[in-house]
């Protein structure tokens, strides 16, 4: 090989290596720039009273997001109560009985639903719950979020059920245990770490959704009046404050964003830790 060709190859190699490295750095940088930016702007307005007080009227200094935090927790909790059983039990059905055309169709539909823009799901909940009841409500918000959750939980749960070795199911059946008990008491517990991880990832995904809540839960500047009334949520507060013309509200939007990011991040980290535990159990 001539020297010139070798040199050319080395240069191309160096260029391509730099290009891939630069793209990797760009990917990571986006995450850290966002986090840094939010902390930079948010930390200033973040203090104890911000977390424990209700919003104040425009012009009055101070005020907090206590109602939004509680509202988010309630809406997400109800969404999980509605969505998790459907997702998990649906996954059990798919895993046990879905080795046919129907199973294929269900999986495909779940993937389509997963890719559905969240605002469309919000409109769906608006038409299905808000319009007939003639009121915005936390219930409608939770229903919208539950719809987003179901396909995520369904697919992740099915994946983890698939990791449970068939030999365990056979061991149970060979003891004369009915199939439904084998699934409930042997198969699901063996996959539990993974199933829980999927649920937590789905929860942290819906905790950050604002679009489906805009015309369902609507938002509220006071403590909520129950599930059938408008309720505040962190993403809604961020949205409202961020598009407002007031300097003070912008600051609060940053701080609320920081709180939301930290909560979601904590949920993600917790999910990863559980996943490690779950994988360990299914490997051994």
């Amino acid at each position, binding site marked *: 090989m001539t020297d010139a060709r070798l040199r050319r190859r080395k240069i191309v190699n160096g260029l391509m290596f730099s290009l891939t490295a630069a793209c990797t750095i760009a990917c990571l940088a986006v995450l850290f720039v966002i986090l840094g930016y939010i902390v930079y702007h948010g930390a200033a307005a973040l203090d104890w009273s911000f977390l424990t007080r209700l919003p104040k009227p425009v012009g009055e200094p101070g005020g907090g997001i206590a109602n939004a935090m509680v509202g988010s927790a309630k809406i997400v909790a109800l969404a999980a109560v509605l969505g998790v059983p459907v997702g998990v039990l649906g996954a059990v059905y798919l895993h046990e009985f879905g*080795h046919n055309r129907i199973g294929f169709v269900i999986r495909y539909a779940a993937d389509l639903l997963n890719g559905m823009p969240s605002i469309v799901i919000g409109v769906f909940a608006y038409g299905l719950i808000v319009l007939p009841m003639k009121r915005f409500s936390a219930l409608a918000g939770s229903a919208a979020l539950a719809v987003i959750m179901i396909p995520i939980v369904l697919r992740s749960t099915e994946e983890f059920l698939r990791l449970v*070795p*068939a*030999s*365990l*199911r*056979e*061991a*149970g*059946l*060979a*003891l*004369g*245990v*009915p199939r439904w*008990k*084998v699934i409930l*008491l*042997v198969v699901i*517990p*063996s996959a*539990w770490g993974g199933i829980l991880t999927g649920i937590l990832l789905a929860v942290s995904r819906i905790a950050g959704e604002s679009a489906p809540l805009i015309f369902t839960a609507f938002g509220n500047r006071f403590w909520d009046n129950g599930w059938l009334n408008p309720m505040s949520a962190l993403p809604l507060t961020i949205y409202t404050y961020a598009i407002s013309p007031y300097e003070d509200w912008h600051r609060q939007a940053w701080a609320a964003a920081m709180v939301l990011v930290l909560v979601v991040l904590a949920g993600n980290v917790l999910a990863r830790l559980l996943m490690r535990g779950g994988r360990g*159990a*299914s490997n*051994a």
Partner: protein
Amino acid sequence: MSDERTYSILEARGLSAGYGSGDAIRNVNMHFYDKRITAIIGPSGCGKSTLIRCLNRMHEEIPGTQVRGVVALSERNIFHMDPVRLRRQVGMVFQRPNPFPTMSIFRNVAAGLILNGLRGERSLAEVVETSLRQAALFDEVKDKLDQPALNLSGGQQQRLCIARALAVEPKVLLLDEPCSALDPIATAKIEELLLQLKDQLTIVMVTHNMQQAARVSDWTGFMLMGELVEFGRTDEIFTTPRDPRTQDYITGRFG
């Protein structure tokens, strides 16, 4: 041909089974005598695992299996029985040890009773101890019954699986190559254990290890390409086989 001191508790009559394309076993007629060990030997792919799985309908767990013929347990056709009830009477131990990973040693042994909600007069602890003693495992694990079952060695796990199967007090215990994943010492322990167990129940084992069949069993069936070539007393099969194919196999000419 029969065993004059005992009777046939389990019987296959004209049994054929297959997985969609062609039959894995064809027209098998075989008796399993009460409180005796019957070994099924043969080269890989001869259908011996299919046969043993049919005996407690575990073949139904493999999608697309069809079965023709009859398997009778104490003169009742098992294909007309509830599979759950059948499997409480005909237990099974598999090739690879498969203790429940989320359960302790104690709960693994008690699993059949706990999961079924069966509680007799004997306490759970009593059943667990008896079963572990029958499986010659009690002395090794008595101080760590609440530890995860996966902490045990492979041979111990397999004996744990035998204890788990014994705890529901089956009449027949099926073993599908129970020692093929184990080392020679663990294998010897299991063989010894089987010889002790045959006072209490009927044992059917599949093995591709001819020496094991010769050492342990009272009756031996030799299978080849889905057919039961010869069935008889173990000493006769191994010393004076009637079929030349059996002769070839036991003298190591193929398989």
